[in-house]
C-alpha cells in the first residue's frame, strides 16, 4: 500500500452512495487474503509456483507469455451474450478460447433472464481442465433488455468470492448501469506479498455518454476512497465499455496519475472506434508491467471480420500486472516479500 490514507469516506453523499450488494464486510480484504493462503496448494506446481490454467498464450496475438510472476486482466463486451450465443457451438468455442487467455475477465452485456448462462459458460471453460469461477451482478437497465456484469477468473491464479463483490448504489440515478465492483487477490508463494486489487466494471449508455462521463471521475474517486477505507485497497482498476475514446474522458482523464491502456487503437471489431478501456492510477498501481493491448479476434482465430462479428462487435482488451504487490518506486516486478521488508 503506497497511498495516503483518506480520513473520510467522502463519496457517501447525495451523488453516489454505496450499499454492499452481497454483504461485503469492511474486513473483507483480510478474508480474501486468508482464503488465498488457505487455498495455495490448489494452484501450485511441484516447485511451489502458481501456474495459470489458462491456455498457452499466443505470442502472435500480442499476448505476453504466461508466467507465474504476472497476471492478465481483460475486459470483454460480448455483445448481447445470452441464449443465442450459448447455443452456437462455433461462437461459444471461441468465447471460451478468449477467456482462457486471461486470469480475470470482466464481462459486459450478459443479456439473459435465464441465470444459467454464465455458470454454463464456466462449465465449458473448465471442461478442458481449467479451474475458472465466476461472479455475476444483478440485472440492470432502464429498457426491456436488461444487462448483467460478470467476472470470470482463474482460481489457480486469483481468488475472489461473492462476499467481495458489490454494486454501486446510484441514488441520483446518474448511470444507466451501475458499476459492479469485485475484489481479487493473486495466489503467490508464501514468501511473496500477493497483489490485491479491485475492479470496477462499467458499461455506459451510448446515448447518455455526455451525461455519464462527467460523473465518472466522482464515481471512481468515491470507489477508491471506499476501497481504501474498507479494505486498505489502493489498486482500483476501472474498466469496461465506456463508449468513449480517451479524448472524451473529460474530468475522468484529468485525475492526477490516471492512466488508460488503450489510446488511439480501435476496440470495436470493425476497427473504427475506441469504446473500451482499462483505467487506473499508474502511481498507485505500479504492478502494471507496461504491457497491454487489444486482442484481435480475426488474428487469433484466423477468421474474417464477418465471422468475428458473430462473436462480438467489441474486441477484448487486456493489461498485464505483476502477481506480487509492489512497493513505491518499483514497476511491475516480482518482488520477494523479504526483499520488500528489507527495503522498508
Amino acid at each position, binding site marked *: 500500500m503506497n497511498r495516503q490514507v483518506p480520513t473520510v469516506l467522502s463519496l457517501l453523499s447525495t451523488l453516489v452512495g454505496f450499499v454492499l450488494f452481497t454483504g461485503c464486510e469492511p474486513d473483507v480484504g483480510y478474508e480474501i487474503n486468508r482464503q488465498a493462503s488457505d487455498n495455495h496448494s490448489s494452484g501450485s506446481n511441484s516447485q511451489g509456483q502458481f501456474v495459470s490454467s489458462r491456455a498457452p498464450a499466443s505470442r502472435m496475438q500480442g499476448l505476453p507469455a504466461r508466467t507465474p510472476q504476472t497476471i492478465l486482466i481483460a475486459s470483454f463486451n460480448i455483445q448481447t451474450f445470452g441464449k443465442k450465443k450459448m447455443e452456437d457451438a462455433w461462437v461459444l468455442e471461441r468465447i471460451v478460447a478468449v477467456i482462457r487467455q486471461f486470469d480475470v475477465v470482466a464481462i459486459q452485456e450478459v443479456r439473459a433472464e435465464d441465470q444459467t448462462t454464465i455458470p454454463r459458460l464456466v462449465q465449458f471453460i473448465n471442461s478442458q481442465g481449467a479451474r475458472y469461477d465466476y461472479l455475476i451482478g444483478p440485472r440492470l437497465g432502464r*429498457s426491456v*433488455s436488461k444487462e448483467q456484469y460478470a467476472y470470470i477468473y482463474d482460481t489457480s491464479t486469483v481468488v475472489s468470492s461473492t462476499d467481495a463483490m458489490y454494486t454501486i448504489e446510484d441514488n441520483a440515478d446518474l448511470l444507466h448501469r451501475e458499476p459492479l465492483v469485485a475484489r481479487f487477490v493473486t495466489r503467490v508463494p508464501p514468501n511473496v506479498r500477493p497483489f490485491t486489487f479491485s475492479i470496477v466494471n462499467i458499461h455506459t449508455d*451510448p*446515448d447518455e455518454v455526455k451525461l455519464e462521463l462527467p460523473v465518472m471521475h466522482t464515481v471512481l474517486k468515491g470507489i477508491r476512497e471506499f476501497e481504501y477505507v474498507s479494505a486498505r485497497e489502493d489498486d482500483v482498476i476501472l474498466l469496461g465499455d465506456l463508449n468513449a475514446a480517451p479524448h472524451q474522458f473529460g474530468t475522468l482523464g484529468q485525475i492526477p496519475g490516471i492512466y488508460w491502456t488503450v489510446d488511439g487503437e480501435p476496440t470495436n471489431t470493425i476497427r473504427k472506434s475506441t469504446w473500451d478501456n482499462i483505467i487506473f492510477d499508474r502511481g498507485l498501481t505500479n504492478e502494471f508491467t507496461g504491457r497491454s493491448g487489444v486482442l484481435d479476434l480475426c488474428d487469433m482465430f484466423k477468421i474474417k471480420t464477418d465471422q468475428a462479428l458473430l462473436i462480438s462487435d467489441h474486441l477484448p482488451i487486456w493489461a498485464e500486472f505483476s502477481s506480487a504487490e509492489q512497493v513505491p518506486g518499483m514497476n511491475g516486478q516480482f518482488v520477494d516479500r523479504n526483499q520488500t521488508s528489507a527495503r522498508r
Partner: protein
Amino acid sequence: MIDSKQLVEFAKQPQLALHSLKELLAMLEGEEETEQNCASELLENCGAPQPSDVSFLCEQLRSGVFCRVYWCSTLLGRLGPTVEPPAERSRIQTELCNTISDSKLELTARERAAWAMGELGGVDGENRSVLEKQLDAAPARLKRLLAAALAT
C-alpha cells in the same frame, strides 16, 4: 424477422438497421427474449434516423407501449439540434411533451423523452410551458433532464 445474414450486415453498417425500424419495434414486443435483445442492440447502434422516419416515430410515441416510446424517443433525440425547419422541430417537441406529460407511461420512457428534448434543444414557447409545468412534480432524474432541456 431479421435473419443472421442481415445481423452481420447491421453489425458492419449499423445504420442499415434503420431500414427495418418496423420489424425492430415489433421484435421488442415479441415473446422471445433473444429477439428483444437483438432488437435493443440494433436500436442502440443504428444511429440517427432519417428525416423521413420522423412521422412514423412520432406516431409510435402515441402508442403508449413502453418499449416503443422509449426507443422512438431515443431515435428522435439522436436527430440533435439540426432538425429543420423549426416547425418540424416544434412538431417533434410537442409529441415528446405529450409523452413526458403522460403519467400513465413508465417513468423511464418519460425520462428518455425529456432527454430527447434536451438533445433537440431550442424548446419553443408552448412546449417550454409544458416542461416547466412538469418540472415541479417530477422525480429527481426526470427533473434533471427537464431542467437540461429548458436550459438549451
